[in-house]
């Protein structure tokens, strides 16, 4: 099966709509992706035909709902190469996954002065939980800097990792598109005796993922960025690590026994899933994974690589020095999120005028204010491409930016 982007577009109902009388050109998948019909249908079917709370009922539809939920877990686990679905914890999103590690593992294992190594390109989700921990526990935060060509500067890595207890970094920057070498960093982290956490929120939707090959200890990602619904994400970690961690949130479902004088936590992965889980969303997550697998993640990556290269080239040819790209220009080193500044025009003005052409791009700090400070800007515009975007979408962006330039011409 070849990659048929026209057929893929037809699977996404929202891409048929118009905005301001123009075809919707959705270039904000790094913030959240659109949903194919099969995901919407799968969730609708649970609500209509199989809806009952999971893990408790003995009646037929409760059993069906439970099987659907656990079946979705198995799909997601397999999708990222987890050796067992008991190691795949459903969370609210990647942010909650990282917070789970910060509140459970880190608070049980780190003491004042313990170094945590982060990078300067992290999303706030992989910054603020550690700031909170630093304020509470006195851990030391260290930062891997960036090179002039927007990659991680690993020249002082050994020094930064000296004594480190945790190395936490993004597999792909949501701002720069930069791909980090997860395997290399995981090895370096482990060699220094640190645990390794990967924020894979921008990676898992866009390229094949094998958590075992990565060799990291914690991998966090969200469903809504990979064609699934909001409100559900995942944390993968090896069973022995999860077993040794204290529970995160307390409540129903996460317990084996509760007494007046205490409780016994449930088995993995439910030990970390307190309360009624988002099981309808989990089914949508599973359907999203089925959809992506049927296409093939290597094909998704190849397609996005092609469209990103086309867009970068078209931007360069149309605007030259008037447009600054914040990120690597080599598509082997980057994903489909393209941050840019156009001719001194503020990102919000760029986004506003593009909207008139039906083109959706993000404007702002992209939840990466430390990175914005490093770049020396307060905001950027960001166009991000996914499997349903084609070169016509890239052309719409470039043409729209010409309108922006004309509009704000000094």
């Amino acid at each position, binding site marked *: 099966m070849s990659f048929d982007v026209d057929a893929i577009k037809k699977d996404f109902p929202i891409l048929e709509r118009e905005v301001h009388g123009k075809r919707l050109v959705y270039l904000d998948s790094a913030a959240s992706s659109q949903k194919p019909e099969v995901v919407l249908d799968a969730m609708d079917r649970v609500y209509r035909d199989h809806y009952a709370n999971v893990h408790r009922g003995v009646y037929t539809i409760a059993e069906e709902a439970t099987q659907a939920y656990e079946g979705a877990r198995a799909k997601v686990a397999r999708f990222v190469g987890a050796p067992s679905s008991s190691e795949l914890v459903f969370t609210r999103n990647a942010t909650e996954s990282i917070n789970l590690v910060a509140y459970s593992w880190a608070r049980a294992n780190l003491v004042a002065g313990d170094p945590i190594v982060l990078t300067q390109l992290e999303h706030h989700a992989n910054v603020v939980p550690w700031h909170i921990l630093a304020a509470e526990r006195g851990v030391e935060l260290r930062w891997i800097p960036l090179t002039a060509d927007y990659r991680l500067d690993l020249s002082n890595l050994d020094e930064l990792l000296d004594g480190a207890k945790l190395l936490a970094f993004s597999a792909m920057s949501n701002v720069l598109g930069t791909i980090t070498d997860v395997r290399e960093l995981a090895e370096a982290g482990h060699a220094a005796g640190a645990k390794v956490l990967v924020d894979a929120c921008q990676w898992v939707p866009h390229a094949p993922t094998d958590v075992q090959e990565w060799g990291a200890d914690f991998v966090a990602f969200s469903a809504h960025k990979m064609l699934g619904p909001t409100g559900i994400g995942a944390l993968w970690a090896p069973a022995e690590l999860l077993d040794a961690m204290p529970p995160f949130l307390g409540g129903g479902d996460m317990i084996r026994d509760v007494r007046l004088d205490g409780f016994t936590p449930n088995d993995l992965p439910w030990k970390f899933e307190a309360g009624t889980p988002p099981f309808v969303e989990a089914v949508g997550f599973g359907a999203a994974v089925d959809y992506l697998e049927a296409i093939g993640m290597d094909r998704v990556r190849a397609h996005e690589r092609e469209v990103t290269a086309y867009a970068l080239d078209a931007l360069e040819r149309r605007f030259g020095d008037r447009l600054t790209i914040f990120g690597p220009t080599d598509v082997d080193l980057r994903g489909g999120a393209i941050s840019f500044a156009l001719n001194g025009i*503020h990102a919000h003005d760029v986004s*506003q005028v593009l909207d008139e052409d039906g083109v959706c791009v993000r404007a702002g700090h992209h939840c990466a204010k430390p990175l914005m400070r490093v770049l020396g800007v307060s905001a950027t515009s960001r166009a991000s491409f996914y499997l349903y975007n084609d070169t016509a979408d890239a052309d719409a962006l470039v043409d729209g930016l010409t309108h922006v330039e004309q509009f704000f011409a000094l």
Partner: protein
Amino acid sequence: MPGLEDLYREIILDHYRSPRNRGELAVPPAHKVEGFNPLCGDEVVLYLDVNADGVVEDLKINGQGCSISQASTSMMSSAVKGKPVAEARKLIRAFKALMSIHESKLDGESDGSDLAADLEGVKLGDLEALQGVVKFPVRIKCATLAWNTLAQGLDESENPAASA
């Protein structure tokens, strides 16, 4: 659906391209006040020189941000320069009313008459061009940043001890 011409009126683009009163004043005697919109990175810096008679004798603006925030700052500087503080405060209220932010609404007492009351007797002039911003709710905070910063600056100028 509102169009771009509702938001980016020609007078706004003119103030954006050629901001008035841009620069700095010596502190003291002038008072410096900064306003930020952390969500989009808009930044407004005001230098206010309020004389002994309570008149905004001079005012300079600085900062960076989107066209709406910077044009609104420039238009505010033109409107307020040379005016008594009391009149500047009236302008702030009137401008916020124009942006549909009524002080009384926060107390749940809005009956629709306060817009007229806030605007009564106040000549907004060019500032009325910013009214189109109301149709773009996300951008209202861009337009009001300069005015909130001015209000803070006037408070601090009149009561230096409180700001020290």
